[in-house]
């Protein structure tokens, strides 16, 4: 499936089959979760990152089912197609954004998602304690969602942020790496 077709499918599904919810509700809910985690772990941002990723992972495991049902997507032929589908259909359908897929490695196993906009991070200003700017990946839940969702379709990936506008980086960038294709015999989710 080409990139333009993915974009069309994403647009189409988003318009016709998705229940919309107020953006501030999402933003503030996510913000409360992150802020509460920061309080609960007393500013251990590395642990907060880990927890956000884990929450996202559990969301991803379920969300993929909904995604496949709503979009009627077939199997992706290769990882490049998977990337286009994630960016132009997945993010479009659930967050109404389309991050840019770029920075492929030559072996086609690693790419970057550049987020021009990030509805989760509206209003946010990281705590000015000298550590959050270097340690907290505010939107880390998204990494977990990708990992969980792809694991359910036989792809083990590693996803992590390498830049965030909130931290003062130029762009918000997530790096996604295909670790391996999980064999069908193995029950998914078992390490």
């Amino acid at each position, binding site marked *: 499936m080409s990139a333009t077709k993915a974009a069309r499918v994403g647009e189409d599904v988003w318009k016709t089959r998705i229940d919309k919810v107020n953006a*501030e509700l999402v*933003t*503030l809910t996510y*913000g*409360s979760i*992150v*802020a509460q985690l*920061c309080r609960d772990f007393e500013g251990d941002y590395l642990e907060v990152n880990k927890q956000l990723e884990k929450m996202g992972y559990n969301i991803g495991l379920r969300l993929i089912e909904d995604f496949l049902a709503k979009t009627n997507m077939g199997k992706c032929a290769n990882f490049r197609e998977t990337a286009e589908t994630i960016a132009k259909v997945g993010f479009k359908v659930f967050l109404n954004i389309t991050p840019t897929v770029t920075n492929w490695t030559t072996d086609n196993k690693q790419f970057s998602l550049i987020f021009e906009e990030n509805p989760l991070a*509206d*209003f*946010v*200003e*990281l*705590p*000015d304690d000298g550590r*959050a700017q270097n340690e907290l990946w505010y939107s880390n839940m998204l990494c977990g969602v990708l990992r969980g969702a792809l694991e359910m379709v036989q792809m083990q990936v590693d996803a992590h942020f390498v830049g965030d506008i909130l931290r003062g980086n130029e762009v918000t960038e997530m790096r996604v790496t295909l670790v391996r294709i999980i064999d069908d015999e193995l029950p998914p989710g078992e390490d």
Partner: protein
Amino acid sequence: MSTPRIACIALISRNNSPLHLHPFPSSPSPATLKYHFLTHATLDVFAARLPLKFNGDSDFGLLYSIDEELAAYGWLTNTGVKIVVIIDLGGGGGGGSAAGLGVKDGELKGVFRALQTAYIRLVCNPFYEEGGGGAGGVVRSRRFVEEVRRIGEGWAPGGGGGAGAGAVGERGVVG
């Protein structure tokens, strides 16, 4: 005679503690303390006028003026946050000047709206805690301080900068 300009912007919490006070020009000067006093004095005017205010509007208009030189305008949100803008009328003496007439009624609405929008963006930040962060609850958000500075410096009588700033700020929130 120079044109009126914003001399100071202040935000006060519902418990009447100062949230933020920004003098213009922003370099620290002895005038800063004066603005603290002047802002403090507006609290009584807010309190006195509140029972008489029935139109449900946030705009308190002119609170008082001093020596045909400074005029304090007020805005009270429904959550009790007070915004005070002190205008330097630029009269500097001289009876025939436009001092006291320098700013028309409602001309500051854009400024107040923009400031309120900036405040909304501030409190919507999940890491913001009112009254937290030491120093008596003074706002330390860099983005907010910068936005207030921009609004204050961008305003000019006749609806130029202030109204524009408001429009930009409101788009930010809606989008």
